[in-house]
Each structure stands twice: as structure tokens, then as C-alpha cells.
């Protein structure tokens, strides 16, 4: 049973329990518990997330409920259940996104076809469009947007401020979940996200929407305002630090993304299983692959790891038993009736159908 992405069911103790093994990984324990209760391991693993699904991590309170043991005992026996402190995830994520967008812009100088860029980077086409220079729809949206209030938050603003102050590194998702669970409000995630972003950008000003812009948009605005301006003035104007302003003004100095190893050791013995599944059914979903790995191959691997590997495999040309034929149309003569992808700031470019 789900409501607004948050599960409202109360897990109950499973009928058959298994013993705890000190130092065991949670995924391994959940697997043993599922097998003892004749459940598919992937099913129980997804059930223990909140909201239930393969993406989220195991929630200690749900695991405590299905085992009938206190959380403290589970964490003591399985230290991996200890919640990891949040270390500025948003900043890292923004930086990662900025580096990615820079790479997309560079590639777009050679080839502006959105669909080909989408295939090359393994990203959705709206993300490619967002990354490309020109009329950024996100920027345009915020440029014409007036500051607005959220009356629904009036009664809970104090509690929200307290949550933000208590844990500056808390994710917006966790703040929203706490809010709707503790205060019985029906505020949407987007509303809370806007509010938290505003407060974090301007702790004393909860009315401005200036800092709802993304990191990339912020850099664009800094560059636009940079003519004749001092770094300190720009930093104060955009509520950011000097280093960010400097980085925005000297875009070339942005540190390059450290090349990641594509050989994830977790997938060492699973790679050929995944390849086999993709070969036998090119349209197989990531969720299906993950479930089969967990259920049939006793894998203790996260959904995200499988998703990343599959995305990488799919965007790289792989030798297939029956390769699909890709026809690149003549771009100088767009075919009438063919689907086209409109690129912001450029003329319509015909793309090929999938």
C-alpha cells in the first residue's frame, strides 16, 4: 500500500526467523530470511525499502519489524546497517552534473544531433537539451517567475526551519518524509523542495526564488553579470563563495572528472550473466535483470550498480548476434513526416526513428 511514494503499511514479523551472524552483510541476511520464508530475495529486499522498490536502501526500522528484533541489535550484529553520515551530497552531485554538461557541450560542437548525443552519453534527450548552450528552458522558466508563497507551508514553516537547521546536510527527500509523517500535512515534494532550496540559498529570505536556478544556470548568470564586476560583489549577489565565482569566470579551469574504473569488482562474476540476458532479450528491463541476478544467481548487488552497467553496455556498440540496422538519414534533406527533434537555439534537425 503506497501513498505519495511513502509506504503507509506496517511490516509484520515474518513467520520464520533465521539466526543472526555477526558481521554479515544486510543483503546476505535478507537473502537467508527470504529463502526461509519462501519469498523471492529480490521481493523481500524491495519490500524492506521505503518506499518499497529496488532503488532505495534497506530501512532499519522495516528490517526490525519483519525480524521482531530491535534496531540496535541488528546494527550491532550487522554494522553495515549503520546509517552513513551525509557528506555534502548535493555539492558533489551538482559538480558531477556540471562536468557532465561541459562534456556534452564539447561533444555538441562536433555533432548537434540530440538523439545521437543522447545515445552517446546514455542520457535522456531532455537532459541533453538542458545541457546544451543557448536558450536554456530552465533559465527562461526562472527568469520570468515571480516569487511566490506556499500557503500550505505556513503552519509547518517553523518545523521545516528546525529540520533544516538541525541537519544542514539532510536531503530534501528526507526532510519531506519527516514533514508529512510528523505534521500530517499534504504538501507536495516540489513545494518542500522549493522552500528548502530557498532557505539554504538565503537563510533570511524565504521569498526569493533566485536561487532555485541550477548550478549551470548560476554560472551562466555570473558570467552575464561579470562585466566590470568584482568577485566579491558577484559572490554576494548570488549568495555563493568566491571560489565558485572564480570557477564560473574561468570555465576552463574546472577540474576534469576523474576517470572511473569501468570494472566494478562487484559485477566480476555477474557480468556474463547480464550480457547473456541482454543478448537474449535486448529490451529486458534493468529491474528484471536485477531481480534475476538476486533470485537466480544469489547476487548481492545493488540495483544502481546493475543499472549503471546496463546503461554503459547499451550505449556502447556491442557485438550482437543479430545487430540492429541503423539508418542515418541525409540531414540536408529532412524526410517529410519523419519525427524530428527540436534543439533549442537551432533549427529543427531531423532525427531517426528508433
Amino acid at each position: 500500500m503506497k501513498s505519495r511514494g511513502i509506504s503507509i503499511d506496517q511490516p509484520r514479523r515474518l513467520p520464520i526467523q533465521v539466526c543472526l551472524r555477526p558481521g554479515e552483510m544486510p543483503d546476505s541476511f535478507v537473502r537467508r530470511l527470504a529463502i526461509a520464508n519462501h519469498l523471492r530475495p529480490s521481493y523481500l529486499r524491495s519490500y524492506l525499502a521505503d518506499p518499497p522498490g529496488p532503488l532505495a536502501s534497506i530501512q532499519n526500522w522495516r528490517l526490525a519489524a519483519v525480524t521482531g528484533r530491535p534496531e540496535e541489535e541488528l546494527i550491532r550484529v550487522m554494522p553495515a546497517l549503520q546509517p552513513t553520515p551525509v557528506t555534502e551530497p548535493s555539492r558533489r552531485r551538482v559538480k558531477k552534473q556540471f562536468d557532465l554538461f561541459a562534456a556534452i557541450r564539447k561533444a555538441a560542437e562536433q555533432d548537434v544531433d540530440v538523439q545521437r548525443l543522447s545515445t552517446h552519453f546514455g542520457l535522456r534527450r531532455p537532459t541533453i537539451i538542458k545541457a546544451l548552450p543557448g536558450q536554456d528552458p530552465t533559465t527562461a522558466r526562472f527568469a520570468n517567475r515571480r516569487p511566490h508563497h506556499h500557503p500550505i507551508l505556513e503552519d509547518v514553516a517553523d518545523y521545516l526551519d528546525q529540520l533544516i537547521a538541525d541537519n544542514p546536510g539532510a536531503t530534501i527527500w528526507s526532510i519531506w518524509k519527516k514533514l508529512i509523517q510528523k505534521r500530517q500535512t499534504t504538501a507536495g515534494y516540489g513545494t518542500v523542495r522549493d522552500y528548502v532550496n530557498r532557505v539554504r540559498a538565503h537563510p533570511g529570505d524565504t521569498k526569493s526564488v533566485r536561487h532555485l536556478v541550477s548550478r549551470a544556470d548560476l554560472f551562466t548568470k555570473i558570467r552575464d553579470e561579470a562585466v566590470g564586476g568584482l568577485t566579491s560583489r558577484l559572490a554576494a549577489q548570488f549568495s555563493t563563495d568566491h571560489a565558485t565565482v572564480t570557477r564560473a569566470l574561468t570555465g576552463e579551469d574546472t577540474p576534469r572528472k576523474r576517470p572511473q574504473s569501468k570494472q566494478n569488482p562487484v559485477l566480476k562474476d555477474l557480468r556474463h550473466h547480464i550480457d547473456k540476458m541482454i543478448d537474449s532479450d535486448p529490451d529486458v528491463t534493468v529491474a528484471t535483470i536485477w531481480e534475476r541476478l538476486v533470485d537466480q544467481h544469489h547476487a548481492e548487488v545493488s540495483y544502481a550498480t546493475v543499472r549503471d552497467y546496463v546503461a554503459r553496455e547499451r550505449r556502447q556498440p556491442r557485438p550482437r548476434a543479430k545487430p540492429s540496422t541503423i539508418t542515418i538519414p541525409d540531414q540536408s534533406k529532412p524526410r517529410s513526416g519523419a519525427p524530428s527533434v527540436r534543439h533549442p537555439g537551432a533549427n529543427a534537425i531531423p532525427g531517426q526513428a528508433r
Partner: protein
Amino acid sequence: MVTATTAATTGSYAGLPDDDQHRQLTTLEGWRRYVDSVPVVPDLLDRQAWKRLDGDQQFAYDEARLAHHARLLVVATSTIRKVITEGRRLSYLNRYAVSGRCGLIVSGVARTGKTTSLAQLGKTMEVIHRRRRPESPQDIPVIYITTPPAATPRMMAVELARFLGLPVTTRANITDVIEAVCGVCLDARTGLICVDEIHNISLTTRHGAETSDTLKYFSERIPATFVYAGLNVEREGLLSGTRGQQIAGRFSMIRTGAFPRGDEWTALIATLENSLRLHAHTPGTLTGLDVYLHQGTNGMIGSLLRLIRSAAIQAVIEGSERITRASLDDIEIDVAAESARTGNRPG
């Protein structure tokens, strides 16, 4: 004494929290709570001790008596004894059977004690199993479920999973649920599955027929005795048609009905009267009113229990501390019994 009685009345059973979510038979926690519960009859204080109670003690004493009268005792009627005997006999018959297991159907009109008989059978079987296998306290020897209205095969499988505490989400398909239920039942040595309100399955509909087939499939997979209870099962179509004939060939039936006016009826009233904890009640009052009570309740044990429990609670609340014919006249029972009292047929 008052303190001890209060603690026994309001305390938790078998370490389970005393909240409403466990006050149901259709979950494993609730069922275990029911099986572990031992009815505690509060002692009746003598008049001097009763008068000496201060405000708090008086309140606690009355609460204990009200709780006792709200439950009263389960009287082992002939129907309950018959259901338990037949259920035990069938469970022994089925213990070594590999297929074609026999079952039991308890059928009758409302207020005749079907659910009570079923629950008492389950409780008896669970106690016997615990004595037989004290080394396996985690076993689930008895399952009790209620047939949902307009039941489908998936709903029936989900009911069994819900009793066991197995997680069922919208993603779970019926095959997964059935496999989990059968696997857990085998591991937990389930020997008796009670299915109440079986009249909610109608073999004249496609879903009803499929649900009946699902129950049959469960009976083949799980080495347990199935006991059904429902309203007038033979008239509701569960035994008609090809599927119904198969059920009729495997299941024996015990019919419940109204008590005839006689020794058993009088003995039933006497047992209930002996369990009353009222200070001014004259013993023998209710047994002397057996004819009146039979006419007022139509011989239905459900209506009789409700009438006497209501009158006892009313006597404690009002402070009269006695049940008389006049006080019984003031009690509104169920609509069916009221119609019988006034000579009108309901609806």
C-alpha cells in the same frame, strides 16, 4: 485482591501489547493471543469488604467485573464438543494421507455458535500440538482466516499470507503468494486451516468457482485438515455442481441450530448464571426464567449470551447488582430476537 484481578484483566497476554491490532483471530499474533489467553474470573468480595473500597479501588473492581461480564465464559455446548471431536478425528485421519484429505463443514444460521466452535477447535488443536512438540514453539499448527466478500483466488491466497505475516504488495503475483504460503505451512507444520464465512464463495460465479479450486489446490499442497464454517452452506450452492459434489464427497458436515427447550438449555443458563459476579443477584433467578429466555432468544445461543451479558453489565453500571425479568425486558437484543419477542418477522 482487587489489584490482582485488575492486573489479570487488563494485562497483556503472552507478552503481546494490549492494543486493538492483536484483538483479531485473522493474524498470527492475534490468534496466538487468543490461544494463550486464560479467562480470569474475578472473585466476588463479601459485602463488608466491598463497602470498604475507596473510590479508585471501587472503580478498578467494577472495571474487572465489567470486563468479565463482557466476555463471560465459553460454555462447552454439545455443538462445540461435537465439532472438536470430529475435527480431532479428521486430523488424525489426514495425518498420513498423501491426497484426498477429508474436511469438515460447520453450517447453520446466524447466532448458533459456528465461529465459536471453529475457534475452540483451533485452540484445542494448537494446545495439543504444543504439548506434542514443545521443542518447536515457532510452529503454526492452526490457521484461521475469514473469506472476503466476492472472494477471488488471489484474495484467498492473500488472506492466508496475511495471517502468516508474509508481505504482500501489489507487485506480488498469485503464484509467488501461493508458493510462500505453502512453503511456510509445510515448514511450520500447519495441521488445521479454518476458513470462516465460507458462504462468501458462490460456485455459480466464475471467481467463486476458481476460489473453490484454489482452496482445493491448497488442500493438496498442504497436509492439513480444512474446516469451513458458513451460513447455510448447503443452500448457498457450495455443494452443488461438479465442484460441489467433489467437496460433498470429501467433507463431513455438522449443522448448528437453535437449542431446543430442555435440560441442555437449562444447564447452559445455569452455567452462565454461576459465572455472574453480581452482589445482589439471587441464584436460580435465570434458571427459573428458562422458558422466558428461550422464547425471547428463539433458542439461539448468540442471542442468549448477548442478553445475559448486557443485563449483567447494566446491573453493574446502574448499581442494582442483580438480573431480574424486568431488567431483561429492558435490554434490546438483536433485531431477529426482538422480532421473535414481539412476534414479528424481521424484514
